[in-house]
């Protein structure tokens, strides 16, 4: 196996919570990240064909299809609530092997409400929720405040700010309106969990769990509320290089670790994930863990550009360098397709 097509999306604007246009690209990588990722893949000895995941990607892949051995897919797609399924879908149509999950799982994971329904049906711990548009918010909401309000189909903390925790009906209505206006999406509304927050990286088929990461929010500056908001992820962690609050491996009891691992393995099977993913988990005050969301593909930024990138930190904690992680994902996918390495 020699030739790899690298599929990515480029962010043209830095996410600014005050500018709704910039928030739609929050999931995308900046040009420097993409450049470095390609450099690392070349360093591993592959011939890399970089392809931006836009409308032209289909034609480019169609022309290159007989040259490409495998696609390394870190793209998020472009339009609509099924966008993360688009690139896997065209790769299926062109019958080109690729890293990561199939369109079905990708579509499910981006729609947090549908993913939660599947988890609830499989008795995998996640909170009950409401799915609300601006016309659905009424006083019949039976959950007790404070509540967490987030867009139903966004990743990378897009739409999650200090204002996402609402303490009364007026704030709830305002935040649901804001999300619909900004993202054109409904809001997922659930209890606000006040406990610890963990992130779990998984690689392989069947998967192995990398060292669990805890985002210790008690160590954040006081102006941030204790959760992974857009402000924390994009301004504190990246801009100010603040990552002292990330504890890896997390200091947790054996019983909590077992509970989290069991949840993650069950989720992997229920959704039908392949090759790699990262799962966000948050606990209540009694340390009962609940799945918040699944990231597939998760962000995989080289450490020199973002020292806080979760899955890279996890890989490092297990003794892997950045390029080792890339190689493991490639080998995992190649093995699944029966491609000679």
């Amino acid at each position: 196996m020699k030739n790899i097509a690298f599929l990515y999306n480029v962010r043209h604007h830095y996410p600014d919570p005050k500018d709704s246009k910039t928030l739609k690209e929050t999931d995308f990588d900046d040009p420097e990240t993409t450049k470095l990722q390609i450099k690392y893949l070349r360093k591993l000895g592959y011939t890399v064909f970089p392809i931006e995941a836009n409308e032209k990607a289909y034609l480019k892949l169609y022309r290159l299809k007989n040259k490409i051995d495998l696609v390394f897919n870190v793209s998020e797609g472009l339009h609509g609530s099924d966008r993360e399924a688009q690139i896997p879908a065209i790769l299926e149509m062109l019958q080109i092997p690729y890293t990561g999950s199939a369109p079905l799982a990708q579509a499910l994971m981006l729609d947090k409400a549908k993913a939660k329904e599947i988890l609830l049906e499989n008795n995998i711990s996640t909170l009950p929720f409401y799915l609300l548009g601006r016309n659905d918010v009424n006083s019949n909401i039976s959950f007790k405040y404070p509540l967490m309000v987030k867009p139903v189909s966004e990743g990378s903390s897009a739409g999650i700010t200090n204002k996402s925790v609402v303490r009364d009906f007026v704030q709830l209505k305002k935040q649901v309106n804001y999300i619909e206006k900004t993202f054109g999406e409904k809001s997922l509304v659930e209890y606000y969990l006040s406990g610890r927050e963990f992130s779990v990286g998984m690689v392989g088929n069947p998967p192995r769990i990398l060292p669990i990461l805890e985002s210790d929010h008690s160590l954040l500056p006081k102006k941030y509320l204790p959760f992974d908001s857009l402000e924390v992820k994009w301004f504190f962690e990246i801009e100010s290089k603040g990552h002292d609050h990330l504890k890896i491996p997390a200091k947790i009891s054996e019983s909590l670790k077992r509970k989290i691992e069991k949840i993650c393995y069950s989720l992997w099977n229920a959704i039908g994930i392949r090759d790699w993913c990262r799962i966000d988990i948050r606990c209540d005050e009694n340390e009962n863990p609940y799945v918040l969301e699944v990231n597939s593909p998760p962000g995989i930024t080289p450490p020199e550009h973002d020292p806080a990138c979760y899955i890279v930190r996890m890989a490092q904690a297990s003794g892997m360098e950045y390029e080792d992680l890339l190689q493991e994902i490639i080998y995992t996918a190649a093995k699944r397709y029966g491609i000679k390495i």
Partner: protein
Amino acid sequence: MNNKIIVVLYSEAKRKYFSTEEHYKTELEVFPRSKVVKKEIEKLGYKVILLPGNANSLIKLKKIKPLLVFNLVDSVFGKEELIQIIPATLDLFTIPYTGTDAIGLSINSSKFLTKAILNQSGIPQPKFQLFTNKNIRLDNSLKFPLIVKLNESHGSLEINQDSVVESENKLRNRVGFLIDKYHQSVIIEEYIRGKEITVLMIEDKEESIILAEERIFFKKEKYPLYSYEAAWGEKEIYDCISYKLNEKIKEDVRKAFKILQFKDYARFELIIDKNGNHFFIDPNANPSFGPYGTTSGPFGYLLFLNKIRFVSIVKKIINNVSRRFK
């Protein structure tokens, strides 16, 4: 965009894509039906191009830039679980299309996912369980007789009297047989005796059309069911009569349509037991689309029974798509 051109995409059925002749037959009918649909759309003054749902057609579509695509693709490379490829790619190309989007089709490509999502919303269904191999522990709360179905195939494939099992031993044999033959998971559910009702919903901005028929089998069998033979056999073995749905069922149909993210039109199979309780058996996004006289099954027949012209439905769907993608 070319406002006068509509493309009809149909399933590319090649024998080599299918593991069995029966499965192949369920897809072979799409092309002749699509030709009839083409003629109906042309009545509205559009130029219509027929293309198979494959990699080359998607390249052509980018060049044609049609007003919209009528998506009649039921399988890709013979796999029904891959049909979300079509709307996902059309979304990437920003080409409007009829029918359910990639998320809705993804969910509907698995009976288990469909049932799981309906369960979370309290839509009544028979109890069910997914089997990924024949040795999984049977949920004790399930009561025999149980019916065994392929999780990812539609079109009544492998549905016959052997599908209903009365013991755990027979259940495991049947599950093993289907998994070995089709290499996909299997869903089992409690068999419910009652009236077999097919419901067609056509989405409309004002008020959606909901039509229903009851299937009456000529031959009395131990377990009446809509078998492969009934769906695809040459002999007529059942008749359909109009059925009046009560408001509660209509409400559940509308709710299920919305929850499953169906668009434009969908078909639901229901059973109504002797106590009048209704159970959703099989919701189908993008069911066989076509007028009466083609292989569109209940779609065309229900329109015919209710004296609704097929071309008026085509017009309605074109309007739906224009609104959705504006």
